[in-house]
């Protein structure tokens, strides 16, 4: 039997915290791991014996039974009935206590269970961190957002209730608690509180603390919308922890700098294309390492619309596969944001460019960008078309971010010793392939990850410089991006996913 015990202080009155936690069926509204929950048989959630049946964000299903609920002691106990993990005999309880000097709440979450010996440490860590500590953080964020949404003076003056005749509240609040509400700044941001469709992108007012000593604050002027934001929104990538603000690309102006920052000043124009998420906001704090300075000839909208795609195009065409003059290059989704850059840049590098698109309208766009041949893949088999256009030789390299629908065809379209660069899966996962069969053409397959080429200033800088140089030489052009108000982020995602767009999308705060 192991015991797990975690506890914290929440800077809110005990009634507010208890109102959230006592709802045995409400955990899907605050805990980041939980996607949905319901009570079996439609019983009330506060009936002792009720069973909650819930689904995790990763798909696992669990059932837990309420063993005890006390509004007097503010304690709730429950046990696990069914789970995808061997948490044998798991019994847990949540207990709150008021902190009377101040208006805070002590929260303890503890449990006992019998794990299999070889998974003991792993399961203890999972329970302590991914369930309990993640829950603490989620409640803290939830309450901070409520504070932010409600001016301090408008908050209900809830006194912590104590047993009869409590002590006077004249003693000052403890210094370890968060700064007073009066000093909290807020910013408008798109907040994802649960993974799902575009409708989960909601505009909220959230707290914005002062930048840490090693951070700067950026006031965004334009925010890039990328397909990776969709993966974050749906929970496919774990880059966005709930509740969280999506977005990894933006341009703007430095508004404040932390005390340990040198080399950047208030008023500097910057852009970035990197994790952590948080770009769908008017303002944010972030580490400055991967900020890129903007020169006067690069507009904010251009930077926000193209930095991520431009940097990716740079390492795809120069590092993952160094495109040489005379090579035949196949580019899928060529009318999309990154596709347009790849077509122009590959042509500038001297390659013969074959592009695939989904419609005649998009074919015209891509022809205008300089593609030598354009295949409308909804009308003809692109692998056969490539073989016909290359007299049976195939292509030297394929850039494929479409995934499920194209991977097999891309392999078929390759020349002997060809290189398939699989850098996305907009149509779904590529599935399992027998690597042994790649020997039939001595095929190379690459699966590059953006972070591995850009997660340090010295890795990122050459690509940024090369991309901005290409923009200045007009080797690549970035069309006017389609722009949406920040509040309309959901519409932008709908259009992106419905493939109604060509070129880049930006949000304007």
């Amino acid at each position, binding site marked *: 039997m192991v015991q797990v015990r975690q506890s914290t*202080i929440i800077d809110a009155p005990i009634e507010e915290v208890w109102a959230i936690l006592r709802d045995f069926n409400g955990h899907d509204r605050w805990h980041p791991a939980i996607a949905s929950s319901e009570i079996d048989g439609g019983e009330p959630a506060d009936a002792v014996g009720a069973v909650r049946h819930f689904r995790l964000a990763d798909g696992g299903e669990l059932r837990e039974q309420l063993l005890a609920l006390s509004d007097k002691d503010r304690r709730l106990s429950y046990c696990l009935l069914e789970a995808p993990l061997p948490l044998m005999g798991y019994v847990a309880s949540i207990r709150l*206590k008021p*902190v009377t000097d101040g208006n805070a709440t002590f929260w303890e979450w503890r449990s006992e269970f019998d794990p299999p010996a070889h998974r003991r440490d792993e399961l203890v860590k999972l329970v302590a961190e991914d369930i309990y500590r993640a829950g603490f953080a989620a409640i803290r964020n939830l309450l901070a957002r409520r504070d932010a949404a409600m001016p301090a003076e408008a908050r209900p003056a809830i006194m912590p209730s104590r*047993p009869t*005749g409590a*002590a*006077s509240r004249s*003693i000052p609040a403890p*210094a370890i608690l968060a700064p007073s509400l009066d000093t909290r700044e807020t910013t408008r941001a798109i907040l994802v509180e649960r993974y799902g469709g575009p409708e989960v992108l909601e505009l909220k007012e959230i707290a914005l603390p002062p930048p840490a000593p090693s951070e700067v604050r950026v006031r965004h002027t334009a925010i890039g919308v990328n397909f990776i934001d969709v993966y974050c929104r749906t929970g496919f990538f774990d880059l966005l922890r709930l509740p969280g603000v999506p977005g990894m690309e933006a341009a703007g102006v430095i508004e404040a700098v932390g005390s340990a920052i040198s080399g950047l000043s208030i008023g500097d124009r910057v852009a970035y294309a990197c994790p952590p998420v948080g770009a769908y906001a008017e303002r944010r704090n972030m580490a400055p390492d991967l900020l890129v300075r903007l020169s006067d000839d690069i507009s904010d909208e251009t930077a926000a619309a193209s930095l991520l795609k431009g940097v990716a195009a740079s390492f795809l065409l120069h590092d993952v596969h160094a495109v040489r003059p005379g090579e035949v290059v196949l580019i899928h989704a060529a009318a999309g944001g990154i596709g347009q850059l790849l077509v122009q840049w590959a042509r500038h590098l001297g390659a013969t460019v074959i592009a695939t698109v989904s419609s005649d309208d998009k074919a015209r766009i891509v022809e205008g960008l300089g593609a030598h041949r354009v295949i409308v893949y909804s009308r003809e088999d692109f692998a056969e078309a490539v073989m016909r256009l290359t007299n049976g030789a195939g292509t030297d390299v394929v850039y494929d971010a479409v995934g499920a629908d194209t991977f097999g065809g891309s392999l078929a379209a390759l020349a002997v010793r060809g290189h398939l660069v699989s850098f996305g899966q907009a149509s779904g996962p590529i599935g399992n392939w027998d690597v042994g069969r790649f020997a039939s053409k001595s095929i190379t397959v690459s699966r590059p990850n953006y972070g591995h080429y850009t997660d340090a200033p010295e890795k990122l800088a050459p690509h940024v410089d090369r991309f901005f140089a290409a923009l200045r030489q007009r080797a690549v052009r970035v069309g006017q991006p389609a722009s949406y108000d920040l509040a309309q982020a959901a519409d932008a995602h709908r259009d992106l996913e419905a493939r109604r767009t060509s070129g880049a999308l930006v949000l304007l705060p």
Partner: protein
Amino acid sequence: MTKVYVSSVIPAPAADVWKIVRDFNGLPGWAPFVAESRIEQNAHADRIGCIRSFTLKDGGRIREKLLALSDYDLSCSYAILESPMQVENYVATLSLTPITDGNLTLAEWQAEFDCAPGREAALTQQIGSGVFQAALTALKQRFGR
């Protein structure tokens, strides 16, 4: 029966706070209103049933009997035998709970007692604010906040 409850977050690990508060004869070392203290009959301060006799800075004298001491639960309970406060059946418990987030301590101090009708509010104020919370505030300051 009247109840008093106060609590504070002490900015130190529970084991460190417990070293100070477990000494039933140690009030003068941290409670700002206690002048001196001794254990009657030369008993050990952690012997259940021992009696501490202490003098307040305002001159009052109090005798309290140790009812329970737990190094496992980090709690200490005692009853008042004699005091100038005119309370009966007074039993108090001081307990510590670790706050794992930040390695801090929740200190809770609660008491139950009987008193003459009409004196509940004044006694609650005196004990809760004047004694318990004042002592916990002193404990907090001792650990640097």
